[in-house]
């Protein structure tokens, strides 16, 4: 059996879309637009996050960034980055729906400017309104089980707990909490969003049974973003295959893997 990213076993569904890749990638922080474009291609990600910012008429003329993204033929996932209240996030989501032509929204409501920790109260409030307005909400949250429950209660089908702080590259701060969320919500799509720094972090998250990984800095800030994008593609696939295969039980003792029967140089009588 050949296992590739295009293996039919890897096909999955999120937000009504059928996808091959379980890697979601950001479009920010690359050394150049060409690096961004090539890294996204190398990642084989089919979902790319984008954002909205104030632009003058001059800046907006012929928006080259948006033209590149459109040429990649990917599903865009606009975010509400920088919003600090439910009201701001709801308005940004409505604006994004008009500009990007999608009802998907990565809901980010920041509660602390220092560590960019999401505000769970405003996030839940915004999620409830947006779901009623027909959005497919991808809420960025912490690894708090109760917050995940509240988001599910208001109708979120997708939840995106952080691995660690945005842009920190520290990996999974609290795998036990993430595991608990996975076990509590087998029916929801769970994506690790933020904090992933290297492919081994992505493998670890996927081995926990998470459905996908959303990252940006880990690729964009790598010395070779394009090669790192490919690295993450394989890491996400490896982690998923490991989860589906079922990881062996850990043991507290050594156990030889080579058969002991027929061990040479052992004799009953010496």
């Amino acid at each position, binding site marked *: 059996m050949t296992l590739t990213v295009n293996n039919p076993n890897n096909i999955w569904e999120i937000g009504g879309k059928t996808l091959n890749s379980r890697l979601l990638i950001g479009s920010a922080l690359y050394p150049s637009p060409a690096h961004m474009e090539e890294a996204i291609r190398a990642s084989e990600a089919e979902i790319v996050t*984008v*954002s*909205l910012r104030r*632009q003058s008429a001059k800046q907006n003329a012929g*928006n080259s960034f948006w033209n590149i993204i459109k040429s990649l033929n990917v599903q865009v996932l606009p*975010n509400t980055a920088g919003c600090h209240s439910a009201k701001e996030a709801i308005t940004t989501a409505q604006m994004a729906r008009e500009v*990007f032509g999608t009802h998907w929204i990565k809901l980010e409501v920041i509660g602390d400017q220092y560590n960019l920790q999401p505000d769970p109260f405003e996030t839940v409030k915004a999620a409830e309104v947006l779901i009623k307005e027909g959005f497919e909400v991808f809420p960025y949250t912490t690894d708090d089980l109760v917050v995940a429950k509240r988001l599910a209660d208001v109708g979120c089908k997708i939840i995106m707990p952080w691995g660690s702080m945005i842009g920190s590259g520290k990996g999974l701060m609290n795998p036990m909490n993430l595991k608990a969320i996975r076990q509590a919500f087998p029916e929801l799509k769970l994506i690790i969003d933020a904090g992933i720094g290297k492919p081994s972090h992505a493998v670890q998250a996927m081995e926990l049974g998470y459905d996908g990984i959303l990252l940006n800095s880990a690729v964009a800030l790598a010395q070779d973003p394009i090669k790192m994008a490919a690295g993450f593609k394989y890491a996400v696939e490896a982690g998923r295959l490991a989860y589906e295969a079922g990881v062996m039980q850990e043991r507290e003792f050594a156990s030889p893997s080579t058969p002991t029967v027929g061990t040479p140089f052992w004799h009953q009588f010496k």
Partner: protein
Amino acid sequence: MITVSINGERKEIKEGLNIKELIKALGYTTSGFAIAINTTFVPIAKYLETIIKAGDEIDILAPVQGG
């Protein structure tokens, strides 16, 4: 003339402009942006009927890179 805030900057504009007239006056020639007034989204369908008032805070947002 009335004073409004456009993308965080104070500007003097003609009184009585609707949004369509405002964006033309500001020089926006392409689509691919969305507008909010006083943190409330204004869809394209309401550009003609929405008249800018003194003190309005107008945000004009367009696609950028995001994580």
